[in-house]
């Protein structure tokens, strides 16, 4: 029952307070439900395991206490909408929790896509223009009826995160599953990492030699995927880490210092020879002066000197 009270408080906040409080509420909520581990494996179905105490009924009951006292006619016939609102809240919490748990190292695309799909579905439901029972469209009452417009901004926040992570690149159509390419990459990545681990203790040069083929294959695959634009944040991050790991151990040294410097200093030497030889051997260009016809040409320059002195 303590959980219920907790949730009740939270949704009171959701309705009356701003987005910031809501996010803190999400954190508390995720603590309360103790969600951890590989969620994608734990919950195969798209529906969320809602704590049984938290049902739309009790939520509505609570709402009628708070809001509908003041505006009885506003809330009439919007039970459907309130239900949608509560589902939105749950799914938001689940998605946010998933994102945070896989933030570092980044594995959000692999693990949160089901949550994201659910979240997007509910938002689409709300914003679709179907009027429910009682001929009231939830779109207006839930989304746009106040200055804050909390739901759209919450939605667009998560959508922006999802889009900038470019997760769709790693998923199949409609984001139903991880794409084959991604799975392939993950397998190759695993190979390389295992190899790295194996030779970590020993000589670095040995690591460089033994793991080179695996690493090069991985690198090639990555370059290919980069060209295809099938990269998402998970793959980029994994590759970055692997590259750093590799470069820390095996980096190519500067071997050709002398030839490079020699060639470039030779090149620098050329212009000096060129200009010097030109200066010494080329005949200087001379211009012929013309004495213009002037009425008092002898005076004119003298005049200038005179008047200025």
């Amino acid at each position, binding site marked *: 029952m303590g959980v219920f009270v907790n949730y009740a408080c939270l949704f009171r906040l959701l309705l009356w307070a701003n987005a910031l409080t809501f996010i803190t509420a999400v954190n508390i909520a995720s603590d309360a439900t103790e969600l951890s581990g590989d969620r994608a494996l734990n919950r195969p179905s798209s529906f969320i395991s809602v704590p049984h105490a938290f049902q739309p009924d009790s939520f509505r009951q609570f709402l009628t206490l708070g809001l509908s006292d003041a505006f009885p006619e506003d809330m009439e016939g919007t039970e459907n909408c309130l239900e949608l609102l509560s589902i939105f809240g749950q799914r938001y919490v689940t998605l946010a929790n998933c994102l945070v748990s896989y933030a570092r190292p980044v594995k959000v695309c692999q693990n949160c896509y089901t949550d994201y799909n659910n979240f997007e579905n509910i938002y689409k439901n709300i914003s679709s223009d179907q009027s429910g029972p009682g001929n009231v469209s939830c779109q207006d009452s839930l989304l746009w009826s106040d200055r804050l417009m909390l739901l759209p901004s919450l939605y667009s926040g998560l959508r922006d995160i999802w889009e900038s992570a470019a997760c769709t690149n790693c998923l199949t159509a409609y984001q139903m599953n991880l794409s084959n390419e991604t799975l392939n990459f993950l397998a190759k990545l695993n190979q390389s990492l295992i190899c790295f681990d194996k030779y970590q203790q020993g000589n670095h040069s040995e690591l460089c030699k033994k793991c080179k083929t695996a690493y090069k294959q991985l*690198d090639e695959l990555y370059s290919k995927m980069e060209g295809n634009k099938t*990269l998402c944040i998970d793959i*980029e991050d994994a*590759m*970055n880490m692997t*590259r*750093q790991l*590799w*470069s*820390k151990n095996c*980096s*190519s*040294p*500067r071997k050709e210092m002398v030839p*490079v*410097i020699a*060639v*470039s200093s030779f*090149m*620098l030497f*050329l*212009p000096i020879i*060129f*200009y010097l030889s*030109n*200066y010494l051997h*080329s005949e*200087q*260009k001379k*211009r*012929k*002066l*013309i004495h*213009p*016809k*002037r*009425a*008092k*040409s002898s*005076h*004119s*320059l003298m*005049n*200038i000197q005179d*008047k*200025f002195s």
Partner: protein
Amino acid sequence: MANIAKKVSWSGKNDETRGERTPLLNGSEEVRYNRQLSGGPIFHIGRLSTVDLEEDIATEEDPVRSRPKEIPHNEKLLSLKYESLDYDNSENQLFLEEERRMSHMGFRCLEISRWVICGLIGVFTGLIACFIDIVVEKLAGVKYSVVKKNIEMFTEVGGLSISLLLWVVLNSAFVMVGAIIVTCFEPIAAGSGIPQIKCYLNGVKVPRVVRLKTLVVKVCGVICSVAGGLAVGKEGPMIHSGAVVAAGVSQGRSTSLKKDFKIFEYFRRDTEKRDFVSAGAAAGVSAAFGAPVGGVLFSLEEGASFWNQMLTWRIFFASMISTFTLNLVLSVYHNKTTELSQIICCLLYEIPLFICMGAIGGLLGALFNLLNYWLTIFRIRYVHRPCLQVMEAMMVAAVTASVSFAMIYLSNDCKPLKMDNSEEYPLQLFCADGEYNAMATTFFNTPERSVRSLFHNPRGTYNLLTLGFFTLTYFFLACWTYGLMVSAGVFIPSLLIGAAWGRLFGVLLPNKTFIKPIWADPGKYALMGAAAQLGGIVRMTLSLTVILVEATGNVTYGFPIMLVLMTAKIVGDYFIEGLYDIHIKLQSVPFLHWEAPATSHWLTAREVMSSPVTCFNQLEKVGTIMDFLSNTATNHNGFPVIVQASGEQSGKLCGLILRSQLIVLLKHKVFVERAHSRLHQRKLQLKDFRDAYPRFPPIQSIHVSQDERECMMDLSEFMNPTPYTVPQETSLPRVFKLFRALGLRHLVVVDDVNKVVGLVTRKDLARYHMGKHGLEELHLAQM
């Protein structure tokens, strides 16, 4: 007045002038006469329509005409009320004496005070605009709150008609005040004022249009009419106010207040005043719309007939200052703390910093120009064979590549690759996988892309060493490259050098000083550095500001960019000219600048002109013409045509003929004798001249037989019968102005009986220039 009236009234007096006009009108007089009788104020002479000036003459007591005609007012009349401004300088003895007494320093001071006045104009115009804005806001606020309260009061109890009446009364009262002050005190202040300012800039002296009283009435009037709820805007009056402010400030006194500050006395004439008024109008536009460039273009559009570079730049300065003042005062008034703190932090540390950057840009630009000047002289003297020039270009390319490679090779500056792929060709080299060489992004790229990445990449993209080495090498490479025998521009390289050291400046700044890094966006400093460097090299001002503002799409940078460019230009000009001017000079081009060199009024046309002039008679022997044209020593192009009076050896000027025309005439053998013998020959038309244009055959390709040499040519049909002439005493600046404004090629100098004494051409004028020790004269060289 009566004199003028008589001169202009010829069109009205039909009977007396009939005889005079008959030859002019080629017998079409009857028709016109009828039209005139029918009473219309317009009649046609050929294609020209003449406007009747009768209305104003009607007020004169003219005994010749029995009864002045009266017609209702319409748009086809001109009023005698308006006179012209004296834009031309009167170069009398007193003027010359004053110029002689004035030192070089005196001229500098005048120039500086012009700038000061433009600054003041900007400040005052901005302040007036603020005043109008604020008072209108206050008055309208009071009005609306009173009416609102009233409406709220009567909505409950009924009687909204009283509110209606209140509103009507309030509006009428405001408008009444506005209308009374305009009609009783200063009728010229009615309307937007733009027509009057257009007239003034066009050169018409509109009475009382730039008086202090007009300004006061205009400002109060516009406040009243806007507050009175009329459908009017305050922009037009703001432009007018700017113009009045300019006219007042530049004169240093007010005749309305009878107060003389004894300053700016030199500017008390129409020439100078109108320049300032155009600056004021521009400042007004920019204050009204927040658009400094728009203001300059307004003045350009309306006053374009008298325009030069320095004036444009001063006008732009006034406009910028006016916008800046307006924004500053308004943000203080509205208490916008964020904007205000931005502006103040700008004023306190950024503007001085930018000015420093401008000075650095000017110095570096001057160094660039000086090095390039030496290099170009060397190239002209020693590297003039084509094979050498090709070799040189290839060598520069090779050295550029090898230096770039060495720099990239030795650099240790590695940055992680970004997903957004701002680098087109990231080079890894010795960096770890997933990183790229930052030095390579600057060298291993087209310069345009490098500039873009220097402007836009976030802080930390480049480290100090990279930027420093890049600036240094690229500076010398660019300097070395400009002037090669390849088609290549200097804009992007200068921008690149400037952006690199500007960014370096921006990166260093927060490290070494107290300034917070959030203010010092390195991209902004890169932009300022680019502006400073480019300004220091090419010394363009207005256009460059606009180019950079438009390229970056950020108008708020306009003011700092202008300051940077100005500083760069001033500092650079102290050492050496702009790069383009240097190259024009080195190519020995007779280039005419905007104005004649200062303090050159004492030089007259007699000293400037080339003196014995080759003239042709109106009826000239073909042999003589052939001989003159074939003479390779003299490459004359225009020949004055004279008529020989009996008993004198030199005749009076009657026209000017060009070499090209003579060649066409000779080619078609248009000789007097032939015309008599072969009447069927086609008459030469303008088309024949056009066909030959622009590559007229050389004189050597024309063959004239010995018989034909004795023939005569009649030039009167083909010469320009009214060439521009000046008397011998005309001063150099005047001749210069004629050349520059009319685009002349030949200017004939005549004596008091219209005899040709000399000819002024472009080379005669271009040889005078201001050197380090006053006026200098250049030599003429062959080819």
